[in-house]
């Protein structure tokens, strides 16, 4: 199947990433969208599409107060960081379907000074009596009463299960996860926008960091940060007038039973249904995992990035741990991963900052640039987008 692309990212923008923005998420969204429109060189009047996360507190009406868009298409993607890559997929679909020509996508999150994703207060009240609703884990009626409260607790159980399935010792698991955390921190040292720039991490430092939820340590977890990101997606006709459009050459918003963002009842993210979706993404794009120059793999914890290497076929099932231990994810490895430092060391804008890094890699403007980038995979669980550099289409 030939590589097809109806839409391209023509602009990106973000706020600084900080711990303590002293701004509302509305203000942050405003800054990021302004920056993206400026980068895209599009006028407010040209924008006719708007996409956001269902988790975003900044809704369409708020955006339209400050930007006088006339929308013919708007929508939301669900399940937080799991859905974020689908912002670009939906934008491309809306454009291909003739519903819009220029689509703004955004995510704004005071994840440090506002709602902290490492804590349960976003889903549970802090009164003396808390009602746990629904059956989601964490925080639902069958989870919260047991103290299963944060996504990081669930991902810790994923890590334990992975360790057991493939017979890893505690040390092998720690070394594998630590190699991801340490390499991403190293990438962050070259990235002045990264919150962890200037704070390098050694393997000893990783192993010495405190356990949060066994077997995961402090440095296995994403940052809690404040910031916003935005992207402008345009039709091929408009994109061709830009110097370095980044084409959306494949996308998939995957979901199936028990595959919602943080689930405990289904298979691990390297299971057969996830892998089938991973294969389908590449088949539909006419590409293979080997065609990817780099990847941005959702790293709310190190273990989600680890599992994604298997979901998307970069290594055989059960081998990602030895792969990251032996080959690594650095610039000299077969597949540089999370080259900006990722959610672990740049910032946690619910993965939207990783979409921006994917665009930078395709443009050739990343702080740690992979040479001759052709295609970049941006993946979060079963949801993914393939970005393609202008000269690779």
């Amino acid at each position, binding site marked *: 199947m030939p590589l097809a692309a109806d839409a391209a990212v023509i602009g990106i923008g973000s706020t600084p990433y900080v711990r303590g923005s002293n701004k509302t998420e509305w203000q942050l969204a405003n800054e990021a969208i302004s920056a993206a429109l400026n980068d895209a060189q599009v006028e407010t009047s040209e924008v006719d599409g708007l996409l956001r996360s269902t988790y975003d507190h900044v809704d369409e009406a708020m955006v339209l107060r400050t930007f006088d868009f006339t929308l013919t298409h708007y929508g939301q993607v669900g399940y937080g960081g799991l859905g974020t890559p689908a912002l670009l997929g939906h934008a491309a679909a809306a454009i291909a379907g003739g519903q819009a020509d220029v689509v703004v996508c955004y995510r704004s999150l005071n994840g440090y000074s506002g709602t902290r994703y490492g804590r349960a207060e976003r889903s549970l009240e802090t009164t003396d009596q808390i009602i746990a609703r629904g059956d989601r884990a964490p925080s639902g009626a069958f989870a919260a009463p047991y103290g299963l*409260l944060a996504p990081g607790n669930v991902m810790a*159980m994923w890590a334990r299960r992975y360790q057991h399935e493939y017979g890893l010792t505690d040390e092998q698991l720690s070394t594998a996860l630590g190699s991801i955390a340490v390499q991403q921190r190293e990438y962050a040292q070259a990235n002045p926008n990264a919150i962890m720039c200037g704070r390098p991490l050694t393997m000893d430092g990783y192993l010495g960091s405190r356990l949060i939820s066994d077997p995961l340590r402090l440095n296995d977890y994403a940052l809690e940060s404040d910031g916003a990101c935005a992207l402008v997606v345009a039709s091929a006709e408009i994109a061709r007038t830009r110097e370095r459009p980044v084409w959306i050459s494949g996308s998939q918003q995957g979901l199936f039973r028990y595959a919602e963002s943080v689930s405990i009842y289904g298979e691990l993210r390297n299971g057969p249904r996830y892998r089938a979706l991973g294969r389908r993404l590449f088949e539909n794009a006419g590409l293979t995992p080997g065609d990817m120059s780099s990847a941005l793999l959702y790293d709310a914890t190190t273990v989600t990035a680890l599992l994604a290497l298997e979901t998307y076929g970069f290594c055989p099932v059960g081998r990602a741990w030895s792969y990251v231990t032996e080959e690594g994810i650095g610039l000299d490895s077969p597949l540089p991963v999370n080259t900006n430092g990722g959610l672990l060391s740049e910032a946690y804008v619910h993965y939207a900052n990783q979409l921006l890094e994917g665009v930078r890699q395709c443009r050739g403007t990343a702080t740690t640039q992979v040479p001759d980038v052709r295609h970049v995979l941006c993946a979060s669980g079963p949801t993914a987008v393939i970005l393609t550099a202008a000269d690779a289409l």
Partner: protein
Amino acid sequence: VIVIPEETPLTEPYWAAAKAGRLVVQECQECGRSWHPPQPSCPYCMSDNYLWRQVAPSGSVLSYTVVRQAAHAAVKESVPYIVALITVEPGITVICNILQADPADVRIGTEVELRLGRTPGGIELVEAFLVDLCDPWTRALEVTPLPGGWMPASVGPRSVRDDGLDLDLTTQRHSRRRPAFGSVGGA
């Protein structure tokens, strides 16, 4: 802080059975398969013809974590504590705490005994104990199944409560059983 699971028209029979000391799951009357957590129809054949069936109160650890940093004020006094996924039957996984266990003794595959414990906050929760560490006193309190192990989906809390369980003993048991994990569901 008390964490109260919401009871809905769908899940009310689960909690009613829990109040009577039983762990129940839905079982499809068309294809015979069971599932948890509760949902409106069978995930395998989509039939909504189900009954609630008691499961044997034992299982093995599918995965677990020792929570060492509290993610909510409700568990600030409880850390460290063990949250585990327990496979009670093929395809049936329940979340619970493993109580009175040294984390070093917990492994994936470890066999546990389950019981429904009443927290000081009045909530009936699944509690797991390592089999090897169960004392005879604990074993003597294993729940008594309903005749045939069945109850209809429409059964309410009153009718499943008449099971001869000594409520005084229940209270006593839980004052002994839950001290290590008092504040989730605790007063």
